[in-house]
């Protein structure tokens, strides 16, 4: 059913790829990368009128060069997840930094650089790298993910065989104002394995990141990321997850600042009794630089008795734009599915916008699927109550903002991490109040 691709989409692609060659030195990866390029060439880059890009303009992501983005000054603030005992792996502008990183060794898991894995004659990553991405290209095309699979040199290949001794923390540092990061990670959790993956930082002026995760039967994957506070950075990220029987997948993303962020999360529930929770909290202020944040989620139920949750909260001010495109697809036979989507936004002033398309597509009858979406201003009564108790208006507003985001943060499994996130939000709001 391949329809003819519109010429402007192909033109945009050839402009984007001009001067870029597929990475060399790969063995099995060479074929995979060629296949990804072929996929990409069959779809072109997104056009502003594509239905899937209805609310987010792909123009700056399509452009051959990233818009320059100033590096954010953290002013000596303690790093995110700094209090947590974790394995640190550092990338600067999308490139692995061995010196700044801990040794890639941890009980219960094997960590390799993508470059090494790609150069091996035989490697388990072959069955995953680009494979979940390919599967996630239907029914909706995701050209930036295919582009990533084809051209990414950097990234990690992680195999978890038991319970990881500590969380793995990928730290992304932004150093160059015009860096164009391309990072591709592959994670495989063997049956019964358990990993918490933490990610923080902006990575680059423009980041294209793909994370492919296979969660084996009975395995658990916990993912928490904060996307860095650089005001002018741009990011297009994809998570492709495939879930086995009785497995758990939990992913939470905190986004504060960013000219353009689009986080796509594609989850395929293939084993019975699996559980997937995807959550996001975004706090955007369009005053210093535009803020446009897009959460695009696609959950496919293809097994019995699976549970999925999508909880997305956005606080928007000064012309900030929040987008939620969520979908639950229940395939024929995926009985006893329990699916829920929640997308809410708090608009703190008149200029901000919330655009949403929460979709359900259901082909099985014994299911309970629902979604709720709300949008509105801050609760005047709550504000009045706090003010009447002597809380000044800016503090009262921030309290209500934190309360509003609490639902999404509650999706973080690890209490210490959740506390870190909440504490940081409080601090950032305080700093903003001056």
């Amino acid at each position, binding site marked *: 059913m391949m329809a003819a691709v519109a010429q402007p989409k192909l033109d945009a692609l050839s402009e984007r790829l001009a001067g870029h060659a597929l990475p060399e030195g790969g063995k099995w990866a060479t074929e995979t990368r060629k296949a990804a390029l072929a996929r990409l060439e069959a779809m072109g880059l997104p056009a502003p009128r594509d*239905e899937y890009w209805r609310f987010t303009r792909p123009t700056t992501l399509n452009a051959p060069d990233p818009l320059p983005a100033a590096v954010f000054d953290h002013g000596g603030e303690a790093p995110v997840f700094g209090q947590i005992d974790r394995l640190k792996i550092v990338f600067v502008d999308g490139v692995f930094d061995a010196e700044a990183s801990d040794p890639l060794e941890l009980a219960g898991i094997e960590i390799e650089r993508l470059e090494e894995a790609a150069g091996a004659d035989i490697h388990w990553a072959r069955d995953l790298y680009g494979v979940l991405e390919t599967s996630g290209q239907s029914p909706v095309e995701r050209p930036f993910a295919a582009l990533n699979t084809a051209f990414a040199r950097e990234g990690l290949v992680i195999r978890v065989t038991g319970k990881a001794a500590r969380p793995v923390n990928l730290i992304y540092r932004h150093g160059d104002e015009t860096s164009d990061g391309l990072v591709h990670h592959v994670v495989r959790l063997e049956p019964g394995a358990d990993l918490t993956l933490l990610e923080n930082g902006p990575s680059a002026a423009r980041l294209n990141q793909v994370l492919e995760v296979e969660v084996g039967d009975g395995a658990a994957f916990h993912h928490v990321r904060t996307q860095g506070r650089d005001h002018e950075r741009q990011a297009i990220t994809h998570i492709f997850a495939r879930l086995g029987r009785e497995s758990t997948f939990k992913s939470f993303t905190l986004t504060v600042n960013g000219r353009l962020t689009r986080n796509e999360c594609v989850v395929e529930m293939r084993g019975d009794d699996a559980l997937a929770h995807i959550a996001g909290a975004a706090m955007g202020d369009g005053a210093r630089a535009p803020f446009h944040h897009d959460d695009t989620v696609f959950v496919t139920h293809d097994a019995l008795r699976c549970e999925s949750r999508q909880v997305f909260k956005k606080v928007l001010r000064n012309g900030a734009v929040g987008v939620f495109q969520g979908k639950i697809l229940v395939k*024929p*036979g995926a*009985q006893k599915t329990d699916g829920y989507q929640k997308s809410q*936004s708090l*608009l*703190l*002033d*008149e*200029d*901000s*916008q*919330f*655009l*949403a*398309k*929460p*979709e*359900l*597509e*259901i*082909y*099985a*009858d*014994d*299911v*309970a*699927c*629902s*979604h*709720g*979406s*709300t*949008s*509105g*201003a801050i609760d005047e009564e709550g504000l009045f109550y706090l003010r009447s108790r002597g809380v000044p208006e800016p503090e009262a507003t921030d309290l209500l903002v934190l309360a509003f985001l609490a639902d999404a943060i509650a999706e973080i499994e690890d209490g210490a991490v959740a506390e870190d996130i909440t504490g940081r939000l409080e601090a950032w709001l305080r700093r903003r109040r001056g």
Partner: protein
Amino acid sequence: MAGIDDVVIKEGVEEDTVEAVRSLGEKYKYGWETDIEMDYAPKGLTEDIVRLISRKNEEPEWMTDWRLQAYRRWLEMKEPEWAMVDYPEIDFQDQYYYARPKSMETKPQSLDDVDPKLLATYEKLGIPLKEQMILAGVEGADEVPADGANSDRKVAVDAVFDSVSVGTTFKKELEQAGVIFCSISEAIREHPELVKKYLGSVVPQSDNFYATLNSAVFSDGSFVYIPPGVRCPMELSTYFRINAENTGQFERTLIIADKGSFVSYLEGCTAPQRDKAQLHAAVVEIVILEDAEVKYSTVQNWFPGDENGKGGIYNFVTKRADCRGDRAKVMWTQVETGSAVTWKYPSCVLRGDDSQGEFYSIAITNNHQQADTGTKMVHLGKNTKSRIVSKGISAGVAQNTYRGLVSMHPKATNSRNYTQCDSLLIGGTCGAHTVPYIEVKNNSSRVEHEATTSRVDEDQMFYCRSRGMDEEEAVALIVNGFAREVLQALPMEFAMEAQQLVAISLEGSVG
């Protein structure tokens, strides 16, 4: 399937009894056709056909030009593909675009002149005799006093048979109130100033593929004008009947509610049972000025195709109401049980400050039916309010999609929307989908959206069954309960009919 037709009827059994039994066995009770001599325009669509339709309707030149303009635009347009419906490609040249009963060429003067077959059609469709006389175009029928049941609750009817309006009832009484209710072809001749001003002002000539096609070839439809401050003395109704084979029906309805007026409008439609799918592409435009209110209720019961998905009507409809004045109000209520394919989004443009739009819908799909239906609420004015209640019920191997848009423009401050979409699945082989678009561009407005999808509750089924109901009755009762918020929004007669339709549409969906 051994039908009653295969059985040798014993002597002495009344024909009526056989007919009654036959109609019980049939799932679609309006599936018969009237064998009547028709006038057709040649098959296919060309500029000449557009001119011919215009000429047959005795239209002025400006109207012919308007149609031709639409036709030329249509040639450049593509059929929309975004809806979740799947049907074989339509050959637009393999259709008749104009069909009218031969006997309607000259207007009959008395009941005796009217083709008895045409009369029988109305009778069979359940339209009362009194109206039937008027429908057949007999002059003077208005003076006949209405019989008991109808005396306090009148409904004026405009009946459209294939491409022509057969007649409009209660015209005189409506005229006394200043209400104009006639066929659109008559309005183009008699009230060109109104038609010119409003036609295409809500649904522009080239709004979408099917609306553009309709603009080019619409053959008839109803026209309503309610003057300022008038509460229309009775409900108005249009009854659409497709009869001829291979004929597309393209009706166009234009309703104008002037300042402070009120009208309730009902629409019904049926078609014969045929193997080959037929095309229906209608446009309804409603203009609502300051403080006026329009209620538009539809019971759509076109032939849905047989249980194997053969035949049925392809229903591609554009309906839109424009609340142009402050405090204008519109309410769409629809019960969609028929058609093989439905593509329909009755919309509200809330332009005036404090204007209100409401949309209540029940869409039932069974067997191979597919429905992609919903609404658009476009909030442009301040303090505007809208409410959407949509109930989709899917059975057999049918696909039922709710697709809707709620848009709050930056200037539509302090506006409200509440949306509730519930889907019910009966059986494991059907589909129910929800595709809402929410666009909020100011912060003083509140938008709330809820959607659920579930199956018929087992406890409720058990309860009904333990009280002696069979499975089908129980499902019909539960579904009626599920849809009650919408059924309650319908005028009484329609609500009764709709409840029965719910049961009929779901026949064979369980067990």
